[in-house]
């Protein structure tokens, strides 16, 4: 049985998708050296550059956040697979500048190994790079060791906020400190309803019974903390936002960013209904929603489900979040 996907040779997935990506968003981004998505209009070299790396198959992330006010370079791997160290060090060399480079890495085994090897080389070569690791998944518990906490959709708003800080001319230390403050105050929990097909192998990335859902699912089908019977949107929202608010220690009067990030097949209709459920719970707690980005930012092919993300915001973070940006995945006027 052929896969029900619009693809050609599965071996060409990443190169073809990047080609199409550049046709669609050629006013914002360009492709260099096969796997490096860079800004169409390069940033002033006096400003801090932002580099990230990660697998493909999560579109629009990660490369969808390259552009004015966000990332400078995204190093693209293969489907769900981190790029190897050679491309990563190439990107770090390309981005290197006196103002410095912030290198944002999501906590996934492959990404981290690639990043570590590239950082070793960068240090040997004397490049001016600071690495920041996102690890905001609370599925293994909010106080599980960092190694166990995956980097999920939180990288996306972090790119935007760090990018705005860089665009504002802040130093590498300042940009790093802001990004780290956001990083320290964010949390994500994912939920899955239906599996997706890996576009290279044609296999389902996990199995879930017809009446089951799973909270805590990773973004490549890695299993989460617990399967349960299907719940309503309101029940799901309540369970997830309660854990997330607790994880970031949100208290009455606090202002949260709440992001509902669709995994692929979950409709915007459902995401809106969930967000409404989230607001009811936060209203009870006297916690304010400062902003609520909703849509598909980091997907898992056509998986049904979403990632719910929260971050404790302060005036500076909100200002940076609302600053202009112009990327394929997010434009702010």
């Amino acid at each position: 049985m052929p896969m029900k996907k619009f693809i050609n040779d599965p071996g060409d997935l990443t190169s073809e998708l990047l080609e199409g990506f550049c046709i669609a968003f050629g006013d914002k981004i360009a492709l260099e050296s096969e796997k490096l998505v860079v800004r169409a209009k390069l940033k002033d070299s006096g400003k801090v550059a932002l580099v990230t790396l990660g697998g493909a198959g999560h579109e629009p992330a990660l490369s969808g956040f390259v552009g004015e006010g966000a990332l400078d370079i995204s190093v693209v791997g293969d489907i769900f697979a981190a790029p190897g160290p050679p491309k990563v060090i190439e990107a770090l060399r390309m981005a290197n500048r006196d103002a410095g480079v912030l290198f944002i890495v999501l906590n996934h085994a492959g990404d981290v190994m690639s990043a570590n090897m590239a950082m070793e080389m960068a240090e040997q070569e004397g490049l001016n790079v600071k690495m920041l690791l996102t690890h905001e998944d609370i599925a293994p518990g909010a106080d599980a060791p960092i190694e166990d906490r995956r980097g999920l959709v939180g990288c996306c708003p972090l790119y935007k906020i760090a990018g705005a800080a860089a665009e504002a001319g802040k130093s590498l230390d300042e940009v790093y400190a802001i990004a780290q403050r956001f990083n320290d105050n964010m949390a994500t929990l994912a939920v899955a309803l239906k599996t997706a097909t890996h576009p290279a192998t044609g296999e389902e990335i996990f199995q879930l019974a017809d009446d089951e859902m799973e909270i805590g699912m990773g973004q490549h089908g890695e299993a989460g903390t617990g399967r349960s019977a299907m719940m309503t949107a309101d029940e799901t929202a309540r369970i997830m936002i309660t854990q997330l608010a607790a994880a970031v220690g949100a208290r009455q009067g606090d202002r949260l960013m709440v992001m509902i990030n669709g995994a692929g097949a979950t409709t915007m209709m459902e995401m809106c209904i969930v967000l409404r459920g989230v607001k009811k719970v936060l209203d009870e707690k006297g916690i304010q929603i400062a902003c609520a980005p909703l849509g598909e930012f980091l997907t898992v092919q056509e998986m049904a489900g979403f990632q719910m993300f929260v971050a404790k915001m302060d005036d500076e973070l909100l200002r940076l979040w609302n600053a202009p940006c112009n990327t394929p995945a997010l434009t702010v006027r």
Partner: protein
Amino acid sequence: MAETIGYDEVVRMLSAAVEKIRGNHRQLSKLDSATGDGDHGTAMSRAVDAVQKVIDNDPPRALKPLLNNIAWGVMGIDGGSTGPLFGSLFLGLSDGVGDNETLDCAALAAMFEAGLAKVQKQSKAQVGDKTMMDALIPAVEALRKAAEGDDTIDEALRRAAEAARQGADATAAMQAKFGRAKNLGQRTVGHVDPGAASTAYLFEGFCEGIGD
């Protein structure tokens, strides 16, 4: 039989390992579907394609640069954990082989020890953690023992392959402590670790490549 091997034998070892992975990549992805994200077979296919490409296209005809080129090829495959881990293995082999162009059993063991050491720079996983280390560490130990016991290279590689396979099989009973699989915790029990399985295939390939 063979007391030493040279460039041609190493290429034969590598090519046989390439074939071994190619013949089993679907099974490796299946294993990864149970405990990870289902792409390990794809990643290993790309890794061995990179190995074969170095062998086919203008190979340097000297062991150290051969293994170094292979290492960079494997690291460059965009294969998630596979690139850095198996790339590091070859980087270590290249470090370990030094200027030798013929290897006796002891040199072979030393070379693989350097390979293991390089992988261990990337990962703290030990035997029992349900990773490729469960195959790699016993395989390298078997080589060292064989070298100390004055075995032939065929014999040494046969023992290494057996040790790797036993180590891989043993991962079925373990709970994953590293990599993506870690998140599944208890649910990984009952499934062989894909990285361990591919490591066993590599050593079985090395062994068969020499055995011919």
